[in-house]
């Protein structure tokens, strides 16, 4: 998973470099349609890669294991923010360039992929660490005061605890 996240980040830098180099080489504001198609295709691939990475991250969260993928999430956030920025900028440029002409299918496709990426990032499940940290003090006080169950006791006694220490399901 960390390899995939790194790949997303590297790819976002590559697309940025490609787009910016192309802009520098075409300061006459007469973009070549084939170039725009090519950059759009790269942007589409970048968006799809990131959407896939967010999906895999969520599948990994919904599994048993150590940690909560904080490092991976940070890399994906960075790659996604950069990609939204670059692709958004390219789309605006391409839409302006195509004004008065029929929009190309690749630009329409890119617009949809960009929306999917924005949605994947916004909907990503994130762990509220401040809420978890807020539980620590009381838990430790309970343990110090002997207010705890062993897991075996809890398995046996859960039904009788409902309505007392826990709300009834």
């Amino acid at each position: 998973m960390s390899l995939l996240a790194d790949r997303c980040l590297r790819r976002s830098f590559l697309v940025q470099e490609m787009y910016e180099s192309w802009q520098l080489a075409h300061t006459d504001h007469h973009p070549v349609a084939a170039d725009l198609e090519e950059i759009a295709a790269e942007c589409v691939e970048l968006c799809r890669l990131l959407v896939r990475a967010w999906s895999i991250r969520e599948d990994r969260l919904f599994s048993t294991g150590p940690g909560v993928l904080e490092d991976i999430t940070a890399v994906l956030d960075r790659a996604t923010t950069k990609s939204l920025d670059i692709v958004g900028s390219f789309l605006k440029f391409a839409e302006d360039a195509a004004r008065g002409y029929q929009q190309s299918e690749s630009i329409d496709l890119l617009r949809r992929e960009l929306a999917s990426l924005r949605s994947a990032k916004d909907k990503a499940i994130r762990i509220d660490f401040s809420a978890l940290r807020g539980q620590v003090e009381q838990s430790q006080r309970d343990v110090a005061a002997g207010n705890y169950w062993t897991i075996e006791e809890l398995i046996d006694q859960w039904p009788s605890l409902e309505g007392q220490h826990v709300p009834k399901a």
Partner: protein
Amino acid sequence: MSPRRKVNVPKAIVTIIGRFGLEREVVNSLLAAIHAELPEMPSNDRCDDDRFFISRLHIRRPFREHFFVMFVDDSTSPDHLSITAIGHESRDRPH
């Protein structure tokens, strides 16, 4: 081979689990997973407070799946693990 560590669940955590409003089957599965899997879980992924490690447990039901994230204190006692924080998320099961 070191003896299996016992898991303690403070009253505050029991109350929080109750507040999740989960079906009885999900709670049963969660408690069983804590019993079976937590003592075997790698503890190298530490919180910023390094007395605790972080772990996830996954419970799959027919139409919905759940994951729980926990801070686990393994530093206070060599023989015990104590759950000091728990969070819950769920989603529809992908078909």
